[in-house]
């Protein structure tokens, strides 16, 4: 296995006196996709935010390329942040309603000084192509996009600074069934291209099993099981994993 890109050790987060994340540890290699599954309230989104330092952990360590990410500041923190991007569940709230698709995608490139202005439009069109969108959406605002198009724009924005880690927090949950499958294939394509590692957070084990190399099961803020995706589904060892599998199987459509 590659040297870990991201190493999380004994990460704890407290909220209102309650420990919502309880000594979570895992490692993520370059290009690897790790699924984080669990019921609502199990701490999935807290974990995503704590790893990215969008909220401050009470205890524990996050190592990014071997360095103490929680101790970084200034230019070093910005450089690390450029490499870590997140896609949220609901594009309607994660995209600025006043900006066009062009400016939404230009912003990260300009902020991180990644593109000179004359090459900007070309780069943005390439990003759109990567998420299967055409140039016709370039000057639209988020409300002029369908839910699936908006989520693709959110994904393109995350990919803009060429990250090494993509955190997808329930990125498929808010889009329609026919679009879910398109997006899942898109994530599948990204997984096999480039050296993009992904933390794929979902309450739906079915997509996670398809898209991830390994899966961690979160319950009450702690990882209760972590295994290769196939073996986790085939031979679950923890009751919570079994309950998630049972729920996923029940929601499968029996076609006979």
């Amino acid at each position, binding site marked *: 296995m590659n040297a870990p890109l991201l190493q999380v050790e004994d990460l704890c987060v407290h909220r209102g006196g309650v420990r919502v994340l309880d000594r979570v540890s895992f490692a993520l290699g370059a290009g690897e996709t790790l699924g984080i599954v669990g*019921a609502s309230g199990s701490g999935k989104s807290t974990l995503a935010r704590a790893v990215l330092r969008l909220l401050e952990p009470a205890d524990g360590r996050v190592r990014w390329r071997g360095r103490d990410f929680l101790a970084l500041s200034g230019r070093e923190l910005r450089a690390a942040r450029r490499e870590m991007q997140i896609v949220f569940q609901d594009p309607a709230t994660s995209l600025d309603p006043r900006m066009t698709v062009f400016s939404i995608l230009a912003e990260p490139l300009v902020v991180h000084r990644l593109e000179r202005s004359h090459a900007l439009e070309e780069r943005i069109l390439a990003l759109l192509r990567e998420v299967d969108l055409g140039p016709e959406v370039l000057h639209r605002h988020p409300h002029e996009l369908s839910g699936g198009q908006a989520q693709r724009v959110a994904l393109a924005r995350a990919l803009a600074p060429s990250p090494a880690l993509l955190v997808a927090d329930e990125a498929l949950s808010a889009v329609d069934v*026919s*679009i879910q*499958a398109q997006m899942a294939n898109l994530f599948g394509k990204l997984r096999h291209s480039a050296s993009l590692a992904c933390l794929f957070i979902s309450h739906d*084990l079915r997509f996670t099993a398809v898209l991830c190399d390994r899966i961690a099961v979160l319950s009450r803020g702690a990882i209760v099981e972590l295994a290769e995706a196939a073996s986790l589904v085939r031979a679950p060892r923890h009751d919570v994993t079994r309950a998630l599998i049972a729920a996923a*199987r029940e929601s499968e459509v029996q076609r*006979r």
Partner: protein
Amino acid sequence: MLRVRDLTVRFQTGEASFSAVDRISFDLGHGEALGLIGESGSGKTTVALSLLRLLPSGAQVSGRVELSGEDLLGLGPDALNRIRGRRIAMVFHDPLAALNPVLRIGTQISEAVRAHQSVDRRGARTMTLELLRAVGLTANDADRYAHELSGGMRQRALIAMSVACRPEILVADEPTSALDAIVQAGILDLLRGLREERGVSILLATHDLGTAARLCTRIAVLYAGRIVESARTTELLASPRHPYTLGLLRSLPPPLGSSGPVRLQPIAGSAPPPWERPGGCRFRNRCPRAQDDCAKREPELIEIDGRGLACFHPVDAP
């Protein structure tokens, strides 16, 4: 029991006018559960809301919605209030928005009980506790506020309130989509129990075929404001005839633990908003089976042996 015929709902926005729901017809029998399947913009929520005339005042509704022979679309406000809650009740998608944040759960349910039935305060309290027990909540939960309950508990409380007046029909709009997979299963069991034990008929509007398949005896598939296919659930899943239905089934992730290729087979493109629907068949731009005639005329829903289909070039029956 419930007969819907040629239900059409038009909205006026500025100068444009469009139909969100276009000539939809279906029946809901006693103790039956019908699933209205559709993606966003398909009109399923508009259908659900129009049954109880809960649409905004600008909506122009035509057609017939008959409850035991009485046309609900022609009723005055008083007559309508005798139907709402008592004969047809509604379960909404987001229980946090549907529950009152400053009233205890028990108080809200008692209020619903007393609004529709002549019982005193104590009688209402007794009924409330029974209702809470029936949906898997406790007497302690009656004294809690909505924000003190989990998402699943809130939806149970909302269902308790909806069935407080023993309605004959429960209209549920995405009752489980805000909940995680484990909690979803519990809510679906609860709804199934209401149907099987109390004979409540259920109209379930959802985007999720899996949810509908577990609860519903029949399924009607909506696309862009029209029913494109309807059948008994088992038949629909075993042999979908409309290319859209087949596409929806193929979009689902493979069964857990299945090996082999993991590429899903999505439907190309996305559903058009109501003001951009193509002429002819509304699905033709995304349809792998579309031919020239699909652009010329719109296929009507034709029913044969209890199966409805609106397609010129359906998928072959297996």
